[in-house]
């Protein structure tokens, strides 16, 4: 029982926020490097969630373990989607590129959502592991194991991404391309390859987020767009900068939503994100942690 609703809510806000962060990071990466807004990102997350769910339901694979499988699966999917679809718009001028990628993403989102309904029905799914109901109890606050695992996995993922981008040659080539793609080409970087890897990486991150969502949240064909919006709001809140900024913005959103439930009740939760989004756009369009 909740003796202290505020701290408990805050803690849950952080847990959810961490997921928002992971969900957003893939989108931010793709947008930062390719200037492409993949509005089907949430659908990729959804597919990651289904992958985790089926791996668990059919073969009892623990969702945190199945990350090792869902990430590569979504990575490959990202390769295919980029190669087959988004690579065709990437070479256009920025305005047309953004517009067309939005449209394509929108169409793709509907395709994937409806395929999911066809394949797996519209039923809501979730992974209930053996430890799903259990957790730590500290200072009267409950820390469910599933949520803790999610937070840990999220932090690990973000950190791994950061190290990849900062320390590896490929990662640096991605950052260089994000700064100035022509200059990157002139330095010998195949920008086409960078785009391919980046999109695949973004998709893999969506898959990771989806797997984490499947543990204790719902997976259903309809969640795609909801998560896309969440990710978009976080990306706008964070601005273009580094990976940690996006993660922090995610946590911020989670906490803000949690607090709003106290103030105006659960029905208007979504409005909080929206309001924050519009306000940040009005007052600080480069985002809270934006570099530009």
């Amino acid at each position, binding site marked *: 029982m909740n003796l202290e609703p505020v701290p408990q809510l805050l803690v849950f806000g952080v847990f959810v926020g961490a997921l928002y962060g992971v969900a957003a990071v893939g989108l931010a990466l793709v947008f930062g490097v390719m200037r492409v807004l993949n509005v089907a990102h949430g659908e990729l997350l959804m597919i990651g969630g289904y992958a985790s769910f089926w791996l668990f339901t059919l073969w009892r694979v623990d969702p945190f373990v199945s990350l090792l499988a869902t990430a590569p699966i979504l990575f490959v999917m990202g390769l295919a989607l980029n190669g087959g679809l988004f690579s065709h718009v990437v070479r256009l001028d920025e305005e047309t590129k953004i*517009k067309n990628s939005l449209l*394509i993403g929108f*169409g793709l989102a*509907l395709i994937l959502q409806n395929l999911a309904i066809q394949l797996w029905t519209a039923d809501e799914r979730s992974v209930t592991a053996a430890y799903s109901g259990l957790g730590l109890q500290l200072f009267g606050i409950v820390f469910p194991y599933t949520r803790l695992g999610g937070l840990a996995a999220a932090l690990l993922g973000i950190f791994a991404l950061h190290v990849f981008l900062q320390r590896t040659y490929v990662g640096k080539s991605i950052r260089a391309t994000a700064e100035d793609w022509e200059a990157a080409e002139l330095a010998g970087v195949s920008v086409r390859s960078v785009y391919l890897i980046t999109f695949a990486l973004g998709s893999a991150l969506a898959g990771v987020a989806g797997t984490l969502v499947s543990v204790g949240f719902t997976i259903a064909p309809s969640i795609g767009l909801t998560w*896309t919006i969440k990710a978009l709001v976080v990306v706008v809140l964070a601005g273009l900068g580094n990976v940690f900024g996006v993660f922090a913005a995610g946590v911020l959103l989670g906490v803000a939503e949690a607090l709003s439930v106290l103030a105006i009740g659960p029905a208007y939760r979504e409005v909080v994100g929206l309001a924050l989004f*519009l306000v940040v*756009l009005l007052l600080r369009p480069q985002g809270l942690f934006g570099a530009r």
Partner: protein
Amino acid sequence: MLRPLLLLLGLAVAALVPFMTQRTDALNLLFLLLLYITLGQSWNIVGGFVGQTNLGHAAFFGTGALVARGLWTSGVAFPLAFLAGGVAAAAAGIVVGLPTFRLRGAYFAIGTLAVGEGLRITIGNVFPLITTLPVALIATYDLSARYYLALGLAVATTLAAYLLLRSRVSLGMLAIREDEEAAQATGVNPLRHKLAALIISSFFAGLAGSTFAFHQVGYYPSAPFSPIWTFDALLVTFIGGAGSLAGPILGAAFYTVIREVLAVNLVQVHQVIFGTLFIIVVLALPGGLVDAWARVERRFRPAGRR
């Protein structure tokens, strides 16, 4: 000379349909077709004329439906409720447009997408129950009236788009679509033009929502906020040809006919097909049917007339 005559003929035929058939399924199909035309034309004003991608058109559609339905079922005369829906949607347009239009095109798209979904979920939370027409209104339900309303609205929206295209304002809008910075350099105020377009667009989308509220006996209040409606508006416009007047009409006709021809009972498969079609159009045939037709025309024109 031929075109306006054909148009009038078409309108006359359309006006006479309820006299030719009283079949509910036919009238409902045509109602939907007309609604799509309105949704497409209204989307086209911002998406086609000004070139700003609105991914939350359903938000305006839904707002119109919500307000109109709410007022109408509370006893307000429908004509008033109808207009109120449009006005409410226009107000929503301002709320969304002001912060998002100042920035690059992507922000407007994201903003509208976010607002659309946010509203859908919130309305679903706040009004989770089906709204059903009170018995009195069901008793007097006349499908032909709904049909004529949809027809009138489709005509009005097309007319508005037509007048807009012929006005001076449209020059600014088209300039913004082609190159916003260049347009700004020539003295065009992008924010004002975009907002103007959005207000008109959302107003008519709202009226479409009111029409929807008028037509449906029972539905979930969050249903008209579904992104499917946005997608249909986009699909219809792009297939027909964004930026042109005939585009949404052609696209709506094409869409409705093909959908019926497919006669697929599973909603999902036809969505997948149309999603794929949409992507193909965006990638390969950005001008839609209108452009394809123009290209065919050019091929067969006598040599020397390019």
